[in-house]
């Protein structure tokens, strides 16, 4: 009788373990579910509010606002300049289409970093704007220097930004000079690469890497960084291109969300 009780006791532990593992796996599989994302965004937002209350730079509101305004202007000009350069290079490539003039303008929303989050390979920051300001998931996040990341979760008043340093971050990118396209990705060891570039492609150290505009998330022409090293393996098919990002995401305090890019 006691033996049976022991066996039931022993089995109970395994049954509970099995059930909880199943629940965890279901949760892991439901990360794209809107309700789950809303709950996650709301709880991270709650933390962001708490973290923000601990920061003391809010005392300097006047200076902060002025600084914010100037930075926003600088970022907008820098972004527009980048897009204009893109438009100029496009025009060279599309000589037969003279008369078609494309100009892009970006609508930027300023945000402050309210907190930082990292877990294993995940790298993210919390910012103090959310869906109430028009922010939505997958929107690019930039500074006047270049790409910081993209919105991973958007709550009402806070959002989570997946940084370019996050191991699962990917962006379709290209060499601005030669229009060679690849995938920008971090290595996890503090290095960044432009992947999937064929060995015969024209890439030199010093080339500027920008977003290609081939994905839903990033409009064309946002500066990512500069090529620092190009190596080729003997009998290899692809180049190894190391990129030095223009922005150190862990150091940013203010960022801008690129709301939309309109052409006219």
């Amino acid at each position: 009788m006691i033996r049976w009780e022991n066996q039931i006791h022993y089995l109970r532990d395994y049954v509970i373990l099995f059930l909880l593992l199943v629940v965890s796996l279901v949760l892991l599989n439901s990360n794209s579910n809107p309700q789950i994302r809303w709950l996650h965004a709301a709880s991270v937002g709650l933390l962001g509010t708490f973290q923000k209350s601990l920061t003391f730079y809010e005392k300097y509101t006047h200076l902060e606002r002025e600084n914010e305004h100037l930075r926003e202007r600088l970022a907008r000009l820098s972004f527009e300049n980048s897009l204009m350069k893109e438009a100029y290079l496009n025009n060279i490539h599309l000589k037969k289409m003279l008369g078609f003039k494309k100009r892009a303008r970006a609508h930027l929303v300023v945000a402050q970093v309210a907190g930082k989050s990292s877990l294993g390979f995940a790298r993210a920051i919390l910012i103090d704007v959310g869906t109430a300001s028009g922010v939505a998931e997958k929107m690019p996040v930039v500074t006047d220097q270049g790409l910081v990341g993209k919105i991973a979760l958007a709550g009402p008043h806070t959002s989570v930004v997946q940084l370019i340093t996050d191991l699962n971050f990917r962006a379709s990118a290209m060499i601005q000079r030669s229009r060679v396209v690849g995938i920008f990705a971090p290595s996890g060891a503090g290095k960044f690469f432009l992947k999937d570039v064929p060995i015969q492609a024209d890439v030199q150290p010093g080339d500027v890497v920008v977003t290609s505009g081939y994905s839903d998330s990033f409009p064309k022409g946002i500066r990512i960084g500069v090529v620092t090293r190009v190596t080729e393996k003997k009998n290899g098919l692809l180049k190894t291109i190391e990129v030095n990002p223009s922005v150190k995401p862990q150091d940013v305090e203010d960022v801008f969300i690129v709301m939309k890019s309109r052409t006219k």
Partner: protein
Amino acid sequence: MTTLGYLLVFLLFLVTQTVFVPFIEIAGVRPDVLLIFLAIFGMKRERIVGTVSGFGIGLIQDLFTAGFLGANALVKTLTGFLVQPFSSEKSRETAVGFGWRFFWLAFLHDLLLSWIFAWGNTISVWFFLVRFVVPGAVYSTVAALIVFAVLPGSFFSSDD
């Protein structure tokens, strides 16, 4: 120690993990103080208590961090289940004994968690062992030893 006492200590650990731990990050590596709580809480209790606590703690941690929801719940459920074999039979725990056992628990925990986050990435096992798993486990162990020195001995003894 009463349930309310444990709940208060847990809240203290939770605030520390989510608000203060980001400030002591070294090269992308942070200690997991909620794992320390789970280890201390689970080592002297029934296996089922450790398992359920692991799930609850992991789920709360998932909700307040920007990773995948469910990743910590999964890993901490397993850690909570495995925590008992890492407990000491001795009535009086020593810092070295506790630190040694905790290191291996943290190593297993970080290995599983990194594996989930690195899923689908072509990264060598050695790379993420050396870059994240071992440093993370060492950092958590150092933090666990500080907790061991600070918390009263009753916290480390069985309530049974």
